[in-house]
C-alpha cells in the first residue's frame, strides 16, 4: 500500500465514518418501536367500537403509581402439561440436555464476542505504537490478527451450536419455546438478520486485514471502523439474547397471564436486563482473556523455536492482563445485579444469599480465591523472565503467606459441619478463634487484602527488570509504601472495628474498605508507571523464558474463569426455581426441581471439559492454517529479533 500519512482532517473524517457506521447498526431498533406503536394505534382504531381489552402490566407502573395498562396483543402463557408440551430423549433429564447445549453455545458465543473486543484494543494499541515504534506496533497488530483467526473458526462452531440449541429447544421444550418466540418474534428476526450482518462484517474484517494494513494510515483506520462495527453488532446480538434470559427471570411488558401488551420495549427492558447485560459483557471480556491466554500458553508449551516461544509467552501475558482488567470491576457489577434482584423480588435475593442456593456462594468464594492466587502465582512465575527480579523474589513468600491467610479466612464457613464429639470438644457451635473468621467483617477484610496484594504483585512485576531513574524515586517509593500500608491498616482496622459495633453500623464499613483497595489500584499503579519513565532496564525481558508452571497457572486461570461462569449461570438459572418465566409460565415437567450443588458441579465440569476439547480442535485448526502461511512465521522471527531474548 502506498498511501501517505494524512493529516488530522482525514482522521476526523475516518472517526466520523466510524461513528456513522456504528449508528447504522442501531437502525433495526428504530422500526420496532414505530411498528409497535402503529400496531397499537391500528388496534385501537379497529377496536374503537368495542374498546381494546386493556390489561395491567406485571412490572411497569405509570406516573400515578398504578400498574401500566396496555392493549392485549398476544396469547396468554400456556399451561404446560408434562408429556404433551415437553419432549424427551429416553431417560435423560431434558433439562440437563438443554443445560449442556445452552452452556456450550454460550461459551462459544462469549468467546467470539470477547475476542473481537480484544482484537480491537490490540489493533488500536498497535496503531498508536506504530508512530513511535513501527516494529512494536506491528507486533501488536500481528497479535490482533492471530487472535482474530482463532475467533473465525470458533465463530462457525458458535453458529452450529446455536442451531443445536434451537433444535434442542424445539425438541424438548416446544411449549415454552413457542411462548417465548410468540413474544419475541420481531426481536428474533432482527437477531437472525444481525447474525448474518455480523458474519459479513467479520469476513470483511478478517480477510481485509492485510489488504487494509498500512501501519497507521487511513486504510487502517477504516479497518478499525469495521472492527468497531463488528463489536457493536456483537454486543447488540448478545444484549438481545440476554433480554430473553432477563425476561425469563424478571418478566415485564406482559400481564399476569403472560399476555403481551403491545410494547416490545417493555418486554426487552425488564427490571434485571441492564445489570445482567453489564455483568455479562464484563464477564465475557474476562473469560475471553482467559481463553486467549490458555491458547497462547498451549502454543507456548508446544512451540518449536525460541522465537515462537517468545511470541506466545508475550501473547499469553497480554491476554491474561486484559482478562484480569475486566475481572476487577466484575464484583461491583455483581453487587449491583444482586441489589437489583433484591429490589425486584426480595424472595429471590433471599433464595440466592441465604436460602436454597447459599452454598453456591461458598463455591464462588473458592473460585475467586483460586483466581487471585493463580494471578499472583503467574505474575511471580512471569517475573522469572525479567532479569533483576531477584531483588523482589524474597517478598514472594510473604505475599503468598498473606494470600493464604486471607484465603483461609475467606473460606471459613459460618456454619461448621461436625460430629457431636467435636461439638463438645469445641464447647459450642462457634469456635472461639475460627468463628471470628466466618462473619462478614472478616470476609470483606480478606477479599480486600487479596486484591490489594495482587495490585502490589503487579507493581513489583512492572519494575522487576528496571532501575528507576527519576530523581523523585525515593519520594515515590515512600508514597507507595504509605499508600499500601495505610490501605492495609485501614482495611484491617475497619474489619476489626466491625466486631465492636452493631450490625446496622457495620454495613457501612464495606464502602471505605473497598475504597481503600481501589485507591491502591488507581493511585498506586499510575504512580508506579510514572516512576518507570526514563528508567533503564537491567536487561530486556527474556520473552519465552517463563517457567512451564506459569503456563499451567494460566490454564488453571482459564478453567477457573470458565467454571465460575458455569456455576454462576447455574445459580442465575436456578433462582427461577420451578418457573420457565418467573411467575408467568410454570415448569410442569418432572425436571422442575433445582439440582443439588454436587450435580451442578459434575455437569459444569463436563461442560467445561467439552468446551475445551472443542476449543482444542479450533486451536488445532488455526495452527494448521498457520503452517500454510510461512509469512507469519517470518514475522514471528522478526519479533524475535526485536526482542533479543534468544541470546541469553
Amino acid at each position: 500500500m502506498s498511501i501517505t500519512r494524512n493529516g488530522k482532517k482525514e482522521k476526523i473524517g475516518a472517526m466520523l465514518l466510524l461513528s456513522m457506521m456504528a449508528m447504522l447498526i442501531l437502525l433495526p431498533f428504530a422500526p420496532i418501536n414505530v411498528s409497535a406503536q402503529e400496531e397499537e394505534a391500528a388496534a385501537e382504531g379497529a377496536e374503537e367500537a368495542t374498546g381494546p381489552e386493556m390489561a395491567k402490566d406485571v412490572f411497569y407502573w405509570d406516573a400515578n403509581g398504578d400498574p401500566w395498562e396496555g392493549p392485549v396483543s398476544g396469547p396468554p402463557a400456556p399451561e404446560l402439561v408434562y408429556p404433551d408440551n415437553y419432549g424427551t430423549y429416553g431417560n435423560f433429564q431434558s433439562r440437563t440436555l438443554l443445560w449442556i447445549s445452552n452452556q456450550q453455545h454460550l461459551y462459544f458465543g462469549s468467546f467470539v464476542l470477547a475476542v473481537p473486543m480484544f482484537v480491537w484494543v490490540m489493533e488500536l494499541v498497535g496503531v498508536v505504537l506504530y508512530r513511535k515504534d513501527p516494529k512494536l506496533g506491528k507486533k501488536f497488530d500481528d497479535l490482533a490478527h492471530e487472535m482474530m483467526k482463532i475467533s473465525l473458526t470458533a465463530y462457525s462452531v458458535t453458529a452450529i451450536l446455536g442451531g443445536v440449541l434451537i433444535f434442542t429447544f424445539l425438541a424438548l421444550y416446544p411449549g415454552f419455546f413457542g411462548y417465548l418466540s410468540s413474544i419475541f418474534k420481531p426481536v428474533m428476526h432482527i437477531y437472525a438478520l444481525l447474525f448474518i450482518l455480523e458474519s459479513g462484517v467479520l469476513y470483511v474484517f478478517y480477510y481485509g486485514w492485510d489488504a487494509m494494513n498500512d501501519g497507521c494510515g487511513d486504510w487502517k483506520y477504516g479497518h478499525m471502523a469495521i472492527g468497531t462495527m463488528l463489536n457493536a453488532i456483537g454486543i447488540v446480538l448478545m444484549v438481545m439474547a440476554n433480554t430473553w434470559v432477563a425476561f425469563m427471570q424478571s418478566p415485564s411488558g406482559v400481564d399476569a397471564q403472560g399476555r403481551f401488551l403491545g410494547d416490545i420495549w417493555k418486554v426487552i427492558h425488564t427490571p434485571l436486563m441492564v445489570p445482567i447485560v453489564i455483568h455479562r459483557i464484563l464477564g465475557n471480556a474476562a473469560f475471553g482473556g482467559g481463553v486467549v491466554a490458555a491458547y497462547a500458553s498451549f502454543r507456548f508449551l508446544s512451540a518449536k523455536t525460541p522465537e515462537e516461544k517468545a511470541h506466545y509467552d508475550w501473547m499469553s501475558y497480554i491476554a491474561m492482563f486484559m482478562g484480569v482488567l475486566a475481572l476487577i470491576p466484575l464484583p461491583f457489577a455483581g453487587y449491583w445485579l444482586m441489589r437489583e434482584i433484591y429490589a425486584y423480588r426480595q424472595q429471590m435475593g433471599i433464595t440466592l444469599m441465604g436460602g436454597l442456593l447459599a452454598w453456591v456462594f461458598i463455591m464462588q468464594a473458592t473460585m475467586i480465591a483460586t483466581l487471585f492466587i493463580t494471578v499472583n502465582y503467574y505474575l511471580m512465575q512471569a517475573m522469572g523472565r525479567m532479569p533483576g527480579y531477584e531483588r523482589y523474589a524474597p517478598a514472594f513468600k510473604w505475599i503468598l503467606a498473606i494470600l493464604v491467610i486471607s484465603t483461609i479466612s475467606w473460606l471459613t464457613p459460618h456454619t461448621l459441619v461436625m460430629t457431636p464429639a467435636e461439638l463438645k470438644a469445641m464447647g459450642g457451635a462457634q469456635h472461639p478463634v475460627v468463628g471470628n473468621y466466618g462473619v462478614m467483617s472478616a470476609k470483606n477484610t480478606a477479599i480486600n487484602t487479596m486484591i490489594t496484594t495482587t495490585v502490589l504483585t503487579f507493581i513489583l512485576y512492572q519494575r522487576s527488570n528496571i532501575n528507576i531513574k527519576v530523581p523523585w524515586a525515593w519520594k515515590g517509593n515512600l508514597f507507595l509504601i504509605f499508600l499500601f500500608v495505610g490501605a492495609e491498616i485501614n482495611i484491617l482496622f475497619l474489619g476489626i472495628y466491625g466486631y465492636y459495633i452493631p450490625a446496622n453500623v457495620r454495613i457501612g464499613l464495606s464502602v471505605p474498605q473497598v475504597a481503600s483497595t481501589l485507591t491502591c489500584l488507581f493511585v498506586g499503579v499510575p504512580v508506579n508507571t510514572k516512576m518507570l519513565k526514563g528508567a533503564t532496564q537491567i536487561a530486556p525481558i527474556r520473552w519465552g523464558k517463563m517457567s512451564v508452571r506459569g503456563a499451567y497457572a494460566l490454564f488453571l486461570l482459564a478453567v477457573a474463569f470458565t467454571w465460575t461462569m458455569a456455576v454462576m449461570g447455574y445459580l442465575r438459572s436456578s433462582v427461577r426455581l420451578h418457573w420457565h418465566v418467573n411467575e408467568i409460565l410454570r415448569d410442569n415437567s418432572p425436571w422442575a426441581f433445582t439440582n443439588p450443588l454436587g450435580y451442578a458441579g459434575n455437569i459444569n465440569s463436563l461442560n467445561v471439559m467439552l468446551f475445551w476439547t472443542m476449543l482444542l480442535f479450533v486451536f488445532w485448526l488455526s495452527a494448521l492454517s498457520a503452517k500454510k502461511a510461512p509469512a507469519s512465521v517470518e514475522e514471528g522471527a522478526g519479533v524475535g529479533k526485536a526482542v533479543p531474548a534468544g541470546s541469553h
Partner: protein
Amino acid sequence: MGEAEETAEKVGIGQKIVFGLMMAVAAGVYYIVFLNWVLMVPAQNLPYPYK
C-alpha cells in the same frame, strides 16, 4: 527504597524521615478522614445486599 541509592543525588535520612512523616499524615488524613468518615456516612443508607 533500594533504588534510591542508584539515583544521582543522595538523599539524606533526615529528608526521608520528614517526607515519610508528611506521607504518614497524608495517608492518615486520606484514609481516616476522607474514606472512613466522609464515605461511611452515606454508606449507612445503602439498600440490600449491603445489609
